[in-house]
């Protein structure tokens, strides 16, 4: 028997400023009006702890909502009921290749319904947005986020605005249009688009998922950490390698692990959280390598477009989380990204998008440098599907072998003998 989920204020204490600590009620607010620092959701762990047992979680739904007691919604989930709980795959072949005895792939390429980890954050954001009384959702995005918001808004019958740069690839635009949101192409360079979208978010009473709903939205990423721990038999790994764009996912993985530890759901917590970026857009990893606690924004130039955030909102916090955990960060070139993608596909049968190539490429480097040791339990987060970024590997996968419709030709081409029957 499972107890009904905790309601409203029993579980959510409110929002708190990550910089000055000022507290706010759990409304749609994302910046502290004292110091302009970002806000984050705070929970009543004392109320949550007594009821949150391994058994209670295991009895929950086979989705990210099995962790609803640690997610920032007041009632029952209403959007994205099937998101999350993706496979954790024991990657023996890839582990052999890289020199790791216990390597696992957390496979969010098959997240429901839009094949990336964004289905997690968007499920939480839209459920919360409804609770806060919104009927219109919006986001500014170049890819995965827009797909997920558009799909979930369609299913939830919410109005939806998706803002995209005017020069996005046709396949990505179509991936939004099919759900019939209002797709708005914004002219101008990236900074113009960014600035306008921030102004639109400030002006209209919409749930802009990664702006005014961001404190709730971002919490959805914690479920990747929760699932990894549960799927490892309630054990925290020694390493988690995380791709970084805004740095939010990495920050929340660290938060999620610490929550599980604090709530007594795991016995040991010595996980090192490692960050991965593409060399052509690596403000966070570059700062890490220079030993700095601040980063310099960059103009992105990489095939890993889902990670191309030049001035990342959570960059500072990601640096802090990796440092606290004793983890490392590194970068890979575009060629290494493609190598990572094809290596993962050819060893484990998982076709990841470019962000996955970044994760695998950096994992390889960290093992080579001795920062991840052979015997350490290591999890690589593979967060998006390769079918969305096919052009990246188009020239790296070869061509089919062509033959005439003749058995002899076939056997000759492949050096196969005639079978005796």
């Amino acid at each position, binding site marked *: 028997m499972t107890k009904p989920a905790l309601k409203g204020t029993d579980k959510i204490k409110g929002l708190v400023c990550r910089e000055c600590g000022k507290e706010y009620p759990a409304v749609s607010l994302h910046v502290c009006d004292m*110091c*302009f620092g970002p806000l984050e959701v705070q929970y009543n762990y004392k109320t949550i702890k007594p009821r949150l047992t391994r058994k209670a979680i295991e009895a929950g739904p086979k989705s990210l909502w099995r962790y609803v007691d640690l997610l920032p919604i007041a009632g029952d989930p209403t959007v994205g009921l099937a998101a999350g709980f993706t496979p954790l795959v024991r990657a023996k072949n890839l582990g052999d290749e890289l020199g790791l005895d216990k390597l696992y792939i957390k496979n969010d390429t098959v997240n429901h319904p839009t094949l990336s980890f964004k289905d997690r954050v968007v499920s939480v954001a839209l459920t919360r947005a409804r609770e806060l009384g919104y009927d219109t959702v919006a986001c*500014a*995005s170049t890819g995965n986020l827009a797909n997920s918001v558009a799909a979930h808004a369609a299913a939830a019958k919410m109005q939806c605005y998706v803002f995209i740069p005017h020069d996005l690839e046709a396949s990505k635009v179509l991936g939004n249009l099919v759900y019939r949101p209002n797709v708005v192409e914004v002219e101008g360079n*990236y900074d113009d688009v960014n600035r306008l979208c921030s102004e639109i978010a400030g002006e209209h009473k919409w749930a802009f998922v990664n702006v005014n709903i961001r404190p709730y939205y971002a919490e959805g990423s914690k479920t990747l950490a929760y699932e990894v721990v549960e799927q490892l038999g309630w054990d925290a790994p020694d390493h988690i390698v995380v791709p970084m*764009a*805004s740095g939010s996912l990495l920050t929340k993985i660290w938060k999620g692990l610490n929550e599980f530890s604090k709530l007594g759901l795991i016995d040991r917590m010595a996980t090192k959280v490692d960050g991965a970026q593409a060399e052509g857009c690596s403000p966070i990893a570059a700062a890490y390598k220079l030993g700095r606690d601040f980063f310099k924004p960059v103009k992105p130039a990489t095939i890993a477009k889902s990670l191309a955030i030049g001035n990342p909102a959570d960059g500072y916090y990601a640096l802090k989380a990796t440092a606290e955990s004793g983890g490392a960060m590194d970068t890979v070139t575009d060629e290494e990204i493609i190598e990572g993608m094809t290596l993962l596909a050819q060893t484990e049968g998982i076709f990841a998008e470019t962000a996955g190539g970044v994760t695998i490429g950096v994992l390889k480097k960290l093992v080579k440098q001795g920062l991840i040791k052979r015997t350490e339990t290591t999890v690589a987060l593979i967060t998006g599907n390769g079918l969305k970024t096919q052009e990246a590997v188009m020239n790296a996968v070869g061509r089919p072998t062509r033959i005439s419709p003749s058995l002899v030709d076939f056997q000759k081409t492949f050096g196969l003998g005639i079978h005796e029957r």
Partner: protein
Amino acid sequence: MAHLRFHLRFPEDKIKQPVLCQINRTFPKVDTNIRRADVREKTGWMDVEFSGDPAEIERAIEGIRQKGVIVDPIELNVVE
């Protein structure tokens, strides 16, 4: 009257320049209110609220850009 919030980033060679002070003199009808900042030898940024007529704020921001300071929304990148 509008209140707009921006993140101002000073490139290393601009850190020592009195940019905001000059802007205040050129645009006396726009109030600037620094709410959080980190200014060191190798990095300098400020979170600033600008209050006044929206068009005048727009001109003040453009003036700051002209001086080589990078101006972003308070949320930094919102296009994910």
